[in-house]
């Protein structure tokens, strides 16, 4: 769980996404193959009323240590997909293999849940302890970790998330971002290889969002934990190694953030947005300015505009 992976510095230029992928571990951590899942609605007599295919023939592979983002509108199947990764849901067709374990192998269920921990949207539904350190200890306690080691894990996890100073606090007195970091610390204390974050920032203010995303990136970069982030905030995925876009239960796009966010019109058709800076760049390009495709953030846009302004002799 200590620093085991070396990563290139976080720069937004060039083919960063590709180069980062090469530094991720070899092999396959998560292998989803031909996954299909249906929600079956039944009436009171248990007759089938309707079938909704939530995930439809999805195949994807994730390497150990990658930072993955999944985008898609509400009902696109992204949360259903995520729930297959730690065996909350079982495939109707196809297979999901996590770190070499088939999620349908009932004997490995606990191992799978330890390997891939999950953090949900609402921190208030996930915190059960009266005191922060007690809450973080809950997971390892349940796994039967010896008391001495639990203490070490709690300390380590809270320090990683920058919440060690709050170890004696009541979770009720924390901000949303702090509560969510405690939830993540609780997952980290179980020493997972992968964390799935299902819209972890949807209920947070800007500072809370920043804290949680920064924590997720730090876990990925310094601890080598594979991160699977589901979000509606486009700004949060620009540092991901690979972005997957779901629509109508199908996997519609995959690629680096730059590749995906170059396809502004297709994303809009799927009822998605692009980061604000990307959208502004796209509007300016449409109006005739000479800007590159796939601008991801404010720095890149300002840089491109300065270049453009200088060559025109306007600044």
């Amino acid at each position, binding site marked *: 769980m200590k620093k085991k992976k070396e990563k290139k510095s976080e720069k937004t230029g060039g083919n960063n996404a590709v180069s980062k992928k090469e530094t991720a571990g070899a092999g396959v951590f998560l292998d989803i193959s031909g996954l299909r899942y249906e929600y079956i609605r039944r009436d009171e007599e248990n007759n089938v009323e309707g079938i909704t295919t939530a995930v439809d023939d999805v195949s994807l592979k994730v390497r150990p240590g990658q930072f993955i983002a999944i985008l898609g*509108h509400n009902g696109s199947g992204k949360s259903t997909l995520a729930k297959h990764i730690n065996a909350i849901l079982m495939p109707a067709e196809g297979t999901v293999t996590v770190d070499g374990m088939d999620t349908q192998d009932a004997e490995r269920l606990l191992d799978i849940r330890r390997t891939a921990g999950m953090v949900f949207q609402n921190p208030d539904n996930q915190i059960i302890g009266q005191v922060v350190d007690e809450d973080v200890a809950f997971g390892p306690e349940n796994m039967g970790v010896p008391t001495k080691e639990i203490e070490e894990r709690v300390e380590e996890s809270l320090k990683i998330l920058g919440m060690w100073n709050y170890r004696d606090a009541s979770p009720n007195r924390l901000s949303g971002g702090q509560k969510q970091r405690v939830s993540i610390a609780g997952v980290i204390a179980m020493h997972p290889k992968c964390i799935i974050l299902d819209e972890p920032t949807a209920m947070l203010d800007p500072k809370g969002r920043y804290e949680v995303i920064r924590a997720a990136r730090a876990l990925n970069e310094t601890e080598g934990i594979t991160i699977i982030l589901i979000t509606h905030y486009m700004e949060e995925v620009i540092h991901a190694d690979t972005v997957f876009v779901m629509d109508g239960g199908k996997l519609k796009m995959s690629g680096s953030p730059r590749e995906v966010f170059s396809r502004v019109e297709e994303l809009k058709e799927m009822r*998605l947005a692009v980061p604000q800076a990307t959208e*502004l760049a796209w509007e300016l390009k449409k109006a005739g*300015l000479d800007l590159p495709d796939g601008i991801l953030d*404010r720095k890149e846009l300002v840089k491109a*505009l300065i270049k453009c302004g200088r060559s025109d002799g306007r600044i």
Partner: protein
Amino acid sequence: MEEYKLIADHLTYSYGKGSGRERKALDDVSFVLRKGEFVGLIGHTGSGKSTLVQQLNALLKPDSGTVFFEGADIFEKDYDRKALRGKVGLVFQYPEHQLFEETVFAEVCYGPKNIGMDRKATELAAYAAIKRVGLEDEVFDQPPFDLSGGQKRRVAIASVLAMKPEILILDEPAAGLDPAGRMDLLSMIRELKEKEGITILMVSHSMEDVAEMADRLMVMDRGKLVFDDSPAKVFSHVEELEEMGLAAPEMTYILRDLKAAGFDVDPSLITLKDARDTILRCMTGEKA
């Protein structure tokens, strides 16, 4: 002459009184809501926004100070607070968690029935409200739980609209919706203001949303109302907002950076459209 619909007058409130861990949630907060305005309310988690909005329709009584609705003190002993809750409609955060009736129609009828509308008026109001939020006829008899997240949110808003509020207070109405769902819902809320003249107070964590929508913006920080001004003026205080755990809209940051780099752009603009126009004017207009 402008008409004050609601006046918040020196509101103060503490949680945990007498427990030794007293915490001031509201500290001398005063403001007005004018008829037909769209006001945004921002503030970090725990800044007092939700406490404040609960006092505006008398769900929570302030320790000191009071609220006037159309000139009447709503915390007076004989004030009809039940009727007030129809006139000042409050849509909570994640309101879909509070749906409980068997059908969408019954759900939306609950509010008007509760404030004493007769059956016919209730049903007409519920019908109009469900149509108003853009739900189709098919959903009327469906259990609300079978709907998608965005649809449930609309049902919850309809059940407040059915009480025919004059002021609609929404606590983060778009939280958790996808980008298109947000846009749809926000433009529906804007229409309520524009077409029906409903006064809107919207709590939000999205600086971009309030920049696009609000006529006026109020900012709470640790129980105090620190800004109450046009969005453009409020967002010119970038550093102060950041200290409060807030931010300016992305467009403001981009324009400030461009201005610093020597571009002749207006850094007080806050929306995407305005940012595009000022940049285009500067990049393609006549050279100075």
